[in-house]
């Protein structure tokens, strides 16, 4: 069964997706699955996001192997330089 997830995109992920936000129907169980689906499937390249990025679920930091639920909001966090 698929779930519906909401995504907001920032920084390099926004550039890669070409939009600020989107909703997707997906079989992804974890943020790692979702990341691969969105950013790596076309090329078969897996950028191993857990080594250089973070992920938030429903506006708080989460683990890359957390279980996603229908209706969750997911944001991938690229490294940033801050102030």
């Amino acid at each position: 069964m698929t779930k519906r997830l909401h995504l907001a995109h920032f920084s390099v992920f926004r550039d890669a997706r070409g939009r600020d936000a989107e909703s997707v129907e997906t079989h992804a169980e974890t943020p790692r699955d979702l990341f691969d689906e969105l950013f790596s499937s076309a090329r078969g390249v897996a950028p191993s996001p857990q080594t250089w990025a973070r992920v938030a679920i429903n506006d708080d930091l989460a683990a890359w192997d957390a279980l996603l639920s229908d209706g969750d909001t997911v944001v991938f966090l690229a490294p940033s330089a801050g102030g």
Partner: protein
Amino acid sequence: MSFALSDVSLDATACRAALLAAAPSGASGGIVTFEGVVRDHADGRAVQALEYHAYAALARREGARITGEAQDRFRVEAVHVVHRTGHLSLGETAVWVGAAAAHRDAAFEACRWTLDAVKARVPIWKREHYADGPAEWVGAPEVEGLASHRSDP
């Protein structure tokens, strides 16, 4: 203890007033503030302007955690942070951090620690516009899989 985002120019006087409003009157012997200002060059390249994009909900949550942690770590009366979002011109303040404490050591240490924590943990991204080339997200890695997506059909 507070963290705020602002999409309009930061005013150092107003930031300082907000810090002192959170400190018990008469108890603060030392006040240390930091302002990060948009410079005209970065890594040897001429910078024309900046954008800051914040994931606002998480930025506020993480920012509040940081100022709370600063109070636990240091003997401070108050810590206040304001971070800009949006387009900034040269000379504008990007981030303001203030710490008020009974003793100056704690004020210096808390200000510095809070600044470093904000830069490391708060999800705000900086895009620099250069005189000599396309804008870039500062601190972002070059990821082959990601970059290729931009030209995917």
